[in-house]
C-alpha cells in the first residue's frame, strides 16, 4: 500500500466519513489543537528565552527546563493526538501539500533535538556550558518550532 493509498483509505474509512459529517467535530478538534499551540509555546519560551539570557534570567536553566518539560509533553500530547485526527479528516489534501511534509520533518527534528541536545544543554550544570552554545541551542529550537507552526497554519489555508 503506497502512502497515497493509505491516505485515501484513512480519509474514506467509515469512522472518518462519519466524523466529517459532523458540523462541529472538526472545529472543536481544531480549537483544542490551537490550545495545544499555546501550551507548547509557553513551555518552549520559558526555557528558550532563559537560554537566550531573557525571561527568567535569574533562575537556573535546569530547574526551569525540568518544570517546563512536563507542560511541553502535555502540550505535545494534545497537539499530536488532535493533529492526527485533523490529518485523517483530509489526509489526501495534506499528502499533496509540500509544506505538510516540511512541517512533519521539522516536527520530527525538533522533538528529537528537544529530547537530546536541547535537554542535555538545558539540564546541564551552567558552568559547563558556554553561553554561545546555550543561545545557539535556543535559536535552533525556536527556529524549528516556528517552521512547525507556520507550516501548520499554512496547510490549513483553503
Amino acid at each position, binding site marked *: 500500500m503506497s502512502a497515497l493509498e493509505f491516505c485515501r483509505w484513512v480519509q474514506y474509512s467509515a469512522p472518518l466519513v462519519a466524523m466529517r459529517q459532523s*458540523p*462541529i467535530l472538526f*472545529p472543536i478538534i*481544531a*480549537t483544542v489543537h*490551537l*490550545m495545544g*499551540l*499555546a*501550551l*507548547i*509555546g*509557553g*513551555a*518552549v*519560551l*520559558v526555557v528558550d*528565552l532563559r537560554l537566550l539570557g531573557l*525571561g*527568567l*534570567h*535569574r*533562575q537556573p536553566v535546569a*530547574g*526551569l527546563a525540568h*518544570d*517546563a518539560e*512536563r*507542560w511541553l509533553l502535555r502540550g505535545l500530547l494534545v497537539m499530536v493526538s488532535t493533529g492526527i485526527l485533523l490529518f485523517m479528516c483530509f489526509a489526501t489534501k495534506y499528502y499533496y501539500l509540500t509544506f505538510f511534509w516540511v512541517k512533519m520533518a521539522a516536527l520530527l527534528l525538533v522533538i528529537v533535538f528537544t529530547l537530546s541536545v536541547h535537554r542535555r544543554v538545558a539540564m546541564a550544570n551552567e558552568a559547563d556550558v558556554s553561553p554561545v552554545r546555550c543561545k545557539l541551542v535556543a535559536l535552533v529550537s525556536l527556529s524549528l518550532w*516556528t517552521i512547525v*507552526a*507556520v507550516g501548520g*497554519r*499554512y496547510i490549513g*489555508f483553503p
Partner: protein
Amino acid sequence: MSRGPGRPLVDLFRFFEWLGTTSWSIALHESRYVFLLVLMIHVLTVSVFVGTAVMIDLRLLGKTMTHVPVSQVVTRLLPWSEAGFLVMVVSGTLLFYAAPLARYENVFFRLKMAALAMAVMNVWVFRRAVYRRVGEWDLDPVPPRRVRMVGALSLILLAIIITAGRMMAYQDYWFG
C-alpha cells in the same frame, strides 16, 4: 437599517458598513496574500501571548515553577505576554478592518470581545488588588486561594477567547 426615533448618536452598524467601503479595507479584503499573512501572524502569536500568560497562570495556581518567586515570574514573563498581546491587537484590528460589518455581526466575535474585556479586567484586578500584597505569598509554592482564582479565571477566559476566535470562521456555515 432603521433604528427609529431612538437612534443612538453613534450607529455602529452604519459606521462599520461605511468602514468596509473605504479603499484600504477593500484592498486588504481582496489582497489574498497580505490578508493571509496577517491572519497567520494573528494565529501564531497565540503561542507567545497565550503561551506566556498560561505559564504565569500555572504559577499562580502552583502548578509549575513552584520554586520561582511569583513576582519574578510576573515581572520577567508578563512583558512578553504584553508584547504578544500588542501584536494580537494590531493584527486583529487589521483583520477586523478587512471586513468590519461581517466581524461586527459575528456572534463569536462578540463573545470573543466580551471574554477579552473580562480577561483585561481580570489582569487589572490582579494588578490593583491581589498583586499589591505579593510579598506575603511570593515564595509560596501554592499561592492563596484568591490568587489561584485569578489564575484559573484567566485560563478559562483565554480558552474562551481561543475557542470563539476559531469558531468565528464557522458562523456562516452553521447559521448562514
